[in-house]
C-alpha cells in the first residue's frame, strides 16, 4: 500500500495552517464527547469484536488478533 502524495499534502497543509488555540478557549475541546476514547470499555469491547472477526486487526497499538479462534 502506498501513501498517495495528495493525501500527504492535504495532511501537511491541514497541520501547517492550524491556529494556536489558547488554553482559555478550550472548554469545548474538554467536553467528554470530544475525547478520542470517551468510553474506554466500550471501545475495547468493540475492538475485540472486530479483532476476532475481521482479517485487518492490529497495527494500531492493540494486539493483532490472537486467541484460539474460539473466543469472541
Amino acid at each position, binding site marked *: 500500500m502506498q501513501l498517495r502524495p495528495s493525501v500527504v499534502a492535504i495532511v501537511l497543509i491541514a497541520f501547517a495552517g492550524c491556529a*494556536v488555540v*489558547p488554553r482559555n478557549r478550550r472548554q469545548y475541546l474538554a467536553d467528554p464527547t470530544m475525547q478520542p476514547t470517551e468510553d474506554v*470499555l466500550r471501545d*475495547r469491547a468493540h475492538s475485540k469484536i472486530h479483532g476476532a*472477526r475481521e482479517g*485487518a486487526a492490529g*497495527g494500531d497499538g492493540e494486539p493483532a488478533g*490472537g486467541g484460539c*479462534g474460539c473466543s469472541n
Partner: protein
Amino acid sequence: MASLPEAAVVARISLIILLAVGRASAQSSDADIIGHEPGPHVEDVTMRASVIDQHGHGYQSQDGATPGSEAMTIFEPAVLFTIRQSDRVVHEVSLPFDFISAASPDAVDATTSASRRNESGDLDIRTAIKMSDRDTLLTRFAAHVEEPMGSGTIGGGWRRSLADDNAAIAATASFTFDVFDDHDHIGTYLGKTARETSSLNVTASQLLSPTTVLDGSYGITYQHGTLRTGWNAVPVPGIGFADELLPRDRVRNVVTARIAQHVPATRSTFKVWYRAYHDDFGITAHTAELDAYQYLVAWLYVRVGYRYYHQSGADFFTTGLTAQPPDGMLRTSDSDLAPFSANEWSAQLAIVRGRAPNPLRDWSLSAELFHYARSNDLQITAVSLTIGKIL
C-alpha cells in the same frame, strides 16, 4: 499622641510579634500549605456488562452442514479501575472476562470442550508517568488466559505535548507472546505451539480550532510463529476436509485519520474516522466510521454510530479445493479471511459523570445497543450497560 518612650515600647512589641509570626511561617512545610498528597488511591471505577448474540455460518466451523453454524452467546463483564499513585503516576487497570457458549463448534470439541463452552479473562495494566509538563512515559502489561492458550504483553511508549498542548506526538511499542495447544482439523492434539507479535505505533494530534481536533497514526505489526488456527478445516468437496495452512510470518500496516468537531450552537459533536490496512497475506481493508453525539441536557447525551468495513480476502483463501492439497500449499477457508463487507450500527444513551444533579452527580451510566452484519453470513447483536463512580 503617644510619648516617645511609649512609642518605643510599641515598636519593640510589634517587632517581637513580627519575628514570631515570621518564625512560625518559616516552620510551615509545603504540606501544611498545600495539603498532604493522599497516596495511592482508586479514583474511579467503571463496570460494563454485555450480552452478545451471534448467528451465521463459516467454513471453519464443523457444526452441521458445510459451512457450519457459528451461533454463540457471550456474557462479557468488565471492570476498569483508575488508580492514582501520585500526582505524576496514574494506572488504568482493566479486567474483562468472556463466558462463551458454543463458539465455533468444531473438531477440537472431540478432545476438549474449548469451543463448546469457554471462559477467558484478561488483566491489562496501563500506566502513565508524567515526567515533566511536556513528557509522559507510558507502560503496559497484559495477560490473557483461556482454555487452550495463554498470552502475555509488555509495552512502552512516550508522549510529548507541543506548542502549549496544541499538538501531541506519541510513539508506543508492544510485544505479545502467545502459547496455545495445536490440533489438526479432526481434533488430534499436536502439542504446544507459539507465536510472537511485535507492534510499533506512532500518533499525532493537533488542535485546529477551539472546536476541532485532528489526529492520525501509523502502525506496523510483525507476527511470527504458528499463525494458523489448527483445527480450522478447509473443505474438499466430495472428499472431506484438509488442515488449514498459513504462512509463519505476517506484516500488517495501518494508517488512521480522525477529525472531531464540536458544534456549540446545537451542543453536538461529530467524529469521522478512517482506517486503511494492508498486510502480506494480501488483505487490504478500509474502514470508515461516523459517530454523532447530541446533548439532550447538559449531563445526558445520545450517541449514534455507523461503521463500514470492507476487506479483500487473503491470497490463499479458498472454498473450492478439488483434491487434497499438496504439502506446503497455503490455504484457509476461515471466513474471517474471506473477502467481505460489514455494516455496523450502534446507539448509546449516556449520563456524564460530574454533571448530573445529585444524587447522580458522581456517577456515569450508559446503555448501548449494537448490531454488526457481515456480508458473508455473520450477524451480531449486543446489549451493554455501563456504570461508573468517582470515588
